[in-house]
Every structure is written in structure tokens, then in C-alpha cells.
């Protein structure tokens, strides 16, 4: 638990998140229009999405299934009876004049997420609820000098609002929670988690208090669209609140925006928060009633989730909790790793994937999906280490070439003549040569400076251009100098 040091003592920050995750579905929540990202403005709008007179919403069963799947993945209670409500307010990108949402009776109830922190500890974050709702369209204020343009492509797209308990106590925990949630959604296939495209956005509730005291007044920072910004916004906001309180002020419960350019949060205009949404059950829609057998069938079809996968990696592959955590965070990484270990040593594979491959990909700005080194190719390289064809050091050289050229390890080893020398005669000849050239050092060793053996190993490896098997060199030198 990290504390904020104030002038008058320590403060604890309390954080809860409301995450809006776009449901992965071909069609919108209540219409058949496409949800594909990046289309020309107003090309994916049905009469329903545009709220033409007389149009009625019809629930998309796929979206309900995705919400239930997500609920199950969050270890949450599935409510077999839930209700859609209208949240009424006027805005040009809200064609109906109301958003269809779930207010008092959401489809998913309480659940929990286990969040792993960098120091190896874990924290449980409670999920309060998950409900389905429509996204609004987009107001474009920069297309015309005096007018606002409206793009309704997003209007009616299904969102899951996932509300957490105020269980987080640092920006790091909030960031880790968001990353974990994103990971779970991606494993489940219920949200692509693409924050750049707006598929996931967070409203961040922040308050501060003296340790052990009751919750302070919170501020809600709206619509933050990256994990990094969430963390920055919390850092700034918590410090701001501490400063206000220590100056004898009070915190107003308000909605704020995070200005990513200046790194500050700012209160939104009070006019916008004065909404009375006049929620009431949408009379165009019947309550959502789920068949328990249908829910059970979805439960049976859930994929292995990050926590389960992590436990399996630790148990089956003997990985450290940290390595396992890094590998399972992204589904694609975990899949890649599993392909590598199909033929390669698990621990070595973990090191290679995490350190060499991720490092190289990062540097190249590429993702695992377009890695120039395939899982099979990486496994091929690792196998050559374990069968002593090459040393770990040479392997790094080979990997670099593989990454640049996409060639398999064996071809590179062959081409460049990097194969490890394991011929005792050849190594012995090099050992003898080095011994003969350094009589004074030999004398030192014999006089008791055993550590100089290492220097001899280095010389022999140098003479072999790194290709001699280091263990054999070591053994031979010991036999000849100490034996």
C-alpha cells in the first residue's frame, strides 16, 4: 500500500473504476447495423440507431451472451432477470434523447478479479456489477467553423459497463486492475480491449483519506482512454485532493476531465453534471430473462483464463510467478509460448520469449502477431542450445540474425559455421596452445591461484571464436593445470 506524503502526514488514495468495454459483436445492441471500426461517418447507421419515428429496439442475443460470458469470467453472479432502462438526456449524438442502459437490475452482479502486482503480491478487486448499454454517436467539433457534425456509426453499439468496488489504493493497482480486466476480456473474446480505438474507456473515481478513516468525497475523472493516462490522472488527482484538504479546503463531488497534454484534471462545467436522467424501465423492451441452462452452457464453454493459465504454467513448466504472469497477460503471448514449449525446454523458452523476443519486438515496435521469428523457429533455436550444438552466447547472435532475416536457426548456424566445437581433440589442441603460450600464468595457477582458470577458459573460447563447448574447455583446463 503506497501512501501519499502530505505536509501534515500520510494520506491513502482510494480508487474505483467504471470501465466501458465495447462488446465484440458484429451487430449493435438493438439493431442490425455493423459495429466495424473505421468506416466512413454515418455509413453504419440503421433507422433504429438514428431514432427515426416509430423505430423500436430489438435485443441482440449475441451481446447478452457476451455480457454473461464476461460475468462468468469475472467470477460474478449472473442475474437471470434484468431490466433495460432509459437514461434521458438531450445531446445531438444521442438520437433517441435517451440511452438504453440497465439501472437498478443489471445482467451481472457481484464478482471479483485477482490483480497481480509488480512486487509479486496479489490483490482482490471486487466487481460491483456489469450492465449492458448503448454507446452514443460522436460529435465532431472540428469539421466546420460554426457547426458541429455528428457521426452515428457508434450510436447503439453495445457496451459493457463494468463497475469495480473502491478497492484500489494506488495508481499502480488501478493500472494493474485495468490491465488484468483487459486481459480477461480478450481471453474471453468479449471485447478486443483496443483502447486506442476507444473499445475500452475508464471513468476513474478517486478520493483520499487518512489511513483507517472513512472514505473521503470522490471525484470522477471521465473517459480516460489508456492505462498510462489512468495512472497519471490518479497521481495528479490524489495529490490535488491532498493539497486542497491540507490547505483547509473541502473536496466537491464533481466530474472532472484529464487533460493529457498538460497532465492535469479539470472540473467539467457544472451545467453538464446537473442532469436528472429520469431513469425508467424502457417500455419498448421486455425484461431480460435468461435460461439457467443457457448460462451453464456458456460457463462450460469458457476458455482457460489468465489466472488458470498462470497456475498451470507455474505447475507444469516450473515457471516463477513473475514469468508466468508476464507470459499469460496477453493471450497471444501465452499461445506463442505454448507453441515454443511444445518442443523446447520450458524454462529456457520462458527466458527467451520474455527477454530476447519481447525485447527485440519492443525495439522494433512490432507485436507478437507479426514477429519475424515464429514460435517454431524460436523452439528450433532453443533446441540447439539444449543439444549443445551452440552455446547460449552464440544463440543470441543467431537469434539476432533470425530476427532480421527470418531464416531458421539451423541454416544460420550452418551458414556462419557457428556450430559448437565438441571434438575433444580440437579443443585439447587449443587448450594446449594457450597453456604453452602462458607459462607464467600456469605457474601462478600451480602456486594456488585457482581463479586464473577462468582467464584460461576465456582465452580458449576466444581462440575458438566462441564455438568451443565451454564445459569441455573448463574440464580439460582443470585436468591439465590442477590434475
Amino acid at each position: 500500500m503506497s501512501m501519499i506524503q502530505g505536509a501534515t502526514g500520510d494520506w491513502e488514495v482510494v480508487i474505483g473504476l467504471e470501465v466501458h468495454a465495447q462488446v465484440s459483436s458484429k451487430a449493435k445492441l438493438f439493431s442490425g447495423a455493423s459495429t466495424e471500426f473505421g468506416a466512413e461517418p454515418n455509413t453504419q447507421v440503421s433507422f433504429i440507431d438514428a431514432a427515426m419515428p416509430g423505430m423500436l429496439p430489438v435485443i441482440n442475443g449475441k451481446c447478452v451472451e457476451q455480457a454473461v460470458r464476461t460475468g462468468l469470467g469475472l467470477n460474478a453472479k449472473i442475474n437471470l432477470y434484468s431490466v433495460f432502462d432509459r437514461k434521458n438526456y438531450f445531446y445531438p449524438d444521442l438520437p433517441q434523447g435517451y440511452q438504453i442502459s440497465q439501472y437498478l437490475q443489471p445482467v451481472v452482479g457481484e464478482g471479483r478479479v485477482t490483480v497481480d502486482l509488480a512486487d509479486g503480491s496479489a490483490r482482490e478487486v471486487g466487481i460491483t456489477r456489469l450492465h449492458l448499454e448503448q454507446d452514443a454517436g460522436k460529435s465532431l467539433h472540428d469539421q466546420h467553423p460554426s457547426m458541429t457534425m455528428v457521426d452515428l456509426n457508434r450510436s447503439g453499439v453495445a457496451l459493457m459497463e463494468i463497475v469495480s468496488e473502491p478497492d484500489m489504493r494506488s495508481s499502480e493497482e488501478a493500472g494493474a486492475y485495468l490491465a488484468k480486466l483487459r486481459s480477461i476480456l480478450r481471453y474471453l473474446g468479449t471485447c478486443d480491449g483496443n483502447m486506442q480505438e476507444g473499445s475500452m474507456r475508464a471513468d476513474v473515481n478517486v478520493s483520499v483519506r487518512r489511513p483507517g478513516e472513512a472514505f473521503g468525497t470522490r471525484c470522477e475523472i471521465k473517459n480516460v482512454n489508456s492505462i498510462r493516462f489512468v495512472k497519471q490522472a490518479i497521481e495528479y488527482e490524489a495529490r490535488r485532493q491532498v493539497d486542497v484538504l491540507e490547505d483547509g479546503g473541502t473536496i466537491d463531488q464533481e466530474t472532472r476531465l484529464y487533460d493529457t497534454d498538460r497532465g492535469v484534471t479539470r472540473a467539467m462545467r457544472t451545467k453538464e453534471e446537473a442532469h436528472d436522467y429520469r431513469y425508467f424501465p424502457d417500455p419498448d423492451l421486455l425484461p431480460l430473462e435468461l435460461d439457467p441452462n443457457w448460462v451453464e452452457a456458456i460457463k462450460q464453454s469458457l476458455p482457460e483464463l489468465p489466472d488458470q493459465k498462470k497456475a498451470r504454467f507455474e505447475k507444469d513448466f516450473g515457471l516463477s510467478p513473475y514469468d508466468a504472469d508476464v507470459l499469460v497477460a496477453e493471450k497471444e503471448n501465452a499461445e506463442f509460448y505454448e507453441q515454443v514449449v511444445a518442443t523446447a525446454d520450458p524454462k529456457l523458452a520462458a527466458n527467451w520469449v520474455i527477454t530476447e523476443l519481447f525485447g527485440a519486438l519492443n525495439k522494433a515496435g512490432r507485436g507478437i502477431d507479426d514477429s519475424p521469428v515464429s514460435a517454431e523457429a524460436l523452439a528450433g533455436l532453443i533446441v540447439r542450445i539444449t543439444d549443445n550444438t551452440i552455446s547460449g552466447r552464440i544463440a543470441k547472435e543467431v537469434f539476432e540474425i533470425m530476427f532480421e532475416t527470418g531464416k531458421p536457426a539451423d541454416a544460420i548456424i550452418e551458414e556462419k559455421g557457428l556450430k559448437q566445437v565438441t571434438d575433444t581433440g580440437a579443443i585439447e589442441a587449443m587448450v594446449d596452445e594457450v597453456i604453452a603460450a602462458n607459462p607464467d600464468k600456469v605457474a601462478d595457477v600451480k602456486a594456488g591461484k585457482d581463479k586464473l582458470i577462468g582467464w584460461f577458459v576465456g582465452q580458449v573460447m576466444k581462440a575458438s571464436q566462441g564455438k568451443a563447448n565451454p564445459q569441455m574447455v573448463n574440464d580439460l583446463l582443470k585436468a591439465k593445470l590442477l590434475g
Partner: protein
Amino acid sequence: MAGLTDLTIAEARDKLTAGEVSARELTEAHIAAVEAARPLNAFITETPERALAQAEASDARRRSGEAGVMEGVPVGIKDLFCTKGVLTTAGSHILDGFVPPYESTVTANLWKAGAVMLGKCNMDEFAMGSSNETSYYGPVENPWRRPGDNRSIVPGGSSGGSVAAVAARIALGATGTDTGGSIRQPASFAGVVGLKPTYGRCSRFGAVAFASSLDQPGPITRTVRDAAIMLRGMAGFDPMDSTSVDTPVPDYEAALTGDISGLKVGIPKEYRMDGMPAEIEALWKQGIEWLKAAGAEIRDISLPHTKYALPTYYIVAPAEASSNLARYDGVRYGLRIPGNDLTEMYENTRAEGFGTEVQRRVMIGTYVLSAGYYDAYYLKAQKLRTLIARDFETAFEEIDVLLTPTAPSAAFGVGEKSDDPIAMYLNDVFTVPASMAGLPGISVPAGLADDGLPLGLQLIGRAFDEETVLRVAGVLEEAAVFDRRPENWWATK
């Protein structure tokens, strides 16, 4: 050919089937009648070209051996139904110039059944009104007038244009929609048959919404048989309306056996209201006698929560309306009155686009849903609605159908009640309870008031038991022998 416009739908069907008349001839006669009846202001938009094209297509279908249940029948369409390519106004200024690129399910069903569209019928703005005086396109005049009195009479509302068209013999039938009585009350005022089906029987898709949990399309015709025929052409499950019910559409006409012996008819004592005009009371008694004479068993029953129905309705319906009408904001279609900023544009557009009654209801609805008032009004109203529905459920354990007056009075003069919203709302007192419970109800013309204007009696049935309602209505109709018709004072040629 005046004779053609006097036909019932059933008679027209027989003549069309026998080849005695073509759909084109029938349609031409009605187009001429519509034109001649413009002083009634029953239509907002006339669509004669389209009617002729549909009629010709209908004749062609008939020649090739196909005929739907409404084949070749010219009808009026309440201007609440969206009709592809035809101006649809909902009687409101705010939908100026709105031509839907889609068709409502009910009208699509009618066209599939062979019906011909004469035009779009005038109505109270957004179906809010009981006199058709709230229409932006001006009031509709009831074809009926008090004998020896030239003053204009309202046709009731909100389906005022539809009942006027049917009563004036300028359409064989017309669609209406009923939220709290908007089919039944005007039917009573204009001496025609108006059927509000069970909620969920006819699709609401493409019908401009007033109060979603109450709105229900239905037929307005001159006879009970015609109502049965036309309902069959309108009804059916619609996957585009989540509140539509997937149950087969029966041949309603087959239910008109005329046999109601042993049928139990409930007379709810709570409908005998203080200050009820004697003529209404007398007509109701007469109705009881007619049904008794036909072999029905009469039972006095109680619907204890009846008195809460009207106030409850005037919470629920405006609440839903306030939200349903939020989409008319000047942004995407219809009227836009510019302003200096967004809020001003909204305010200007909605102030100019909505009439007084619509604004009143939007404000009532907004109020009852507001934080701090929701529990006291909306939530309590929903609870009462459940109790009202339970009253009917209990009653229907021992009876098959209810008989009540349709409206507390005959039609009144234009302008007589338009300044008194409460007096206007009281028009719905007998029709609203069935609406709140989602039950089918029909108004059958049963007699004339002392001032010579028509009066109707209402029958209310079990959910999805339109057949019993129609059967009893048929008996009532036969007994009442309502053969009076309005004098043609409007004819311009």
C-alpha cells in the same frame, strides 16, 4: 357511384369476388368522395395516384387468382403510421416534411392483404387528445351534427380523421391507434365500430410512439364484421417489435356466430359514476337487456381499482411520452428552428414544433419521472397498474366479457372543452382501464343521445380473446340496429 361508398368491407369483398365491381372502380368512387369531403378535414394527405396504382395491382392479382383478406378495399391510414415515400406527420408541426423511407408493419400487412391507401388521416398531435382539436393540421369535423344545428361537432380523438372518414362514407375502413381510448371514444362519437386489440396483437413497429406500453393499432369500420376482417389484415407477430406476441391470428370473422347463449357478461359497478348522464345510463341498461335477450348471463361484478385508472394513466402515458418525444430535437429530421447555441435550438424547435397539449404532457411526464417525484408518481402508478390488471384477471375468472359505456357523453362542440384539459381527460374514463390492463375493447354504435348524436357501448375481453369480444359485439350490433347515418352537409358537388 355513391352506392359503392355505402358498402361495407364484407359487401365490397363479395362484389369484388363476384366481379361486379373492380378495385379500381371502388377506389375511384372513394377518391371522389374524399375530395368532396374536404370540409371535414379528415385527411392530412390524400394519395389518389397511389390508391389507383394499388387498386390496379389488386385487380391484376385478383385476375391471377390471388386475393388477400382486404383485397381491393380502400382505407384511410391514421397519420401516425409511417408510410414509405408518403408524408407522415403524427398531426404535428415538428414532423414537417418528414417522408419515411420505411413502412410500418401494420400498413405493410394491410398492403400485403390487398388493401388500398386513400391517404393519411388527420389526428390529434402525437395521438394526444380526445377531440382531434390538437392537430397542427386543424380540427377534424364530425360528419354528425345535432339536428337543426349547424355548429361543428368534434369527432373525438385521437383517431378523429379515421372515424370521420369511415362515418362519412369516404373510406370503407381506417386504421386507428388506441393508447387510452383513441380508437373507441371517437368510434362512439362518430357512430362507427372501433376495436382496440390486445396489447401485442398488432405490431407497433413504424407507428410513431406516444406511450409505448399502451399504444395499440386497431381497425375502425362501419360494422363488427368489417372490424373482424380488417383486424385479420393488420395483426400478426412482428420480430421487429419486442412487445409483439407470437400467437396465431385466427379468422376473426368465423367467430361471429351470433350465439352468446350462456356467455357470462360482467357489469362493473364502478363504471356507474356520479353525475353520469341519464341517457348513458339508459343506453347501458338497454345493452344489458339486449345481451340478456340473446341468452347471455348478466353478472354484477366489481373492479375496485377503477377510480385510480384515469389518474394512473395520466402519469404513465405522459412519462413515456416525455421520453418518446425526446427524439424530436431538430437535429436529424422534421422542423428545426435555429438558435444561438444548441440549447436554444432545442428550445426554439420544440416550442414551435409541439402544440400546447403535447407540451403539457411532456412537462407532466418529465415531472413525474424526476428525482424526488419518481417514487410518489411513476412507481406508485406502476403498482396501481398491476392492481388494475389484477381486477380484470379476477373478474374474468367468472365472466367472459364486460359491458360498459364507451364514453361518458356524446360528442361535444368544437371549442367546448378545448380550454379545460381535465374535462377533456375525463372522456377516457371508461376506456383507460382496459388500456392499462392491455385488454381488447370494442366500441359498437348502440343508439343516439337526446341531442341526436351517436353513442357507443364498449365490450372488454380477455387478453387475446378478440373473438369473444367480436362475437358479443356482433350480437349487440344486431340488436341495436344502428342504421342512422350523418346527413351529408359537407358535399361540395
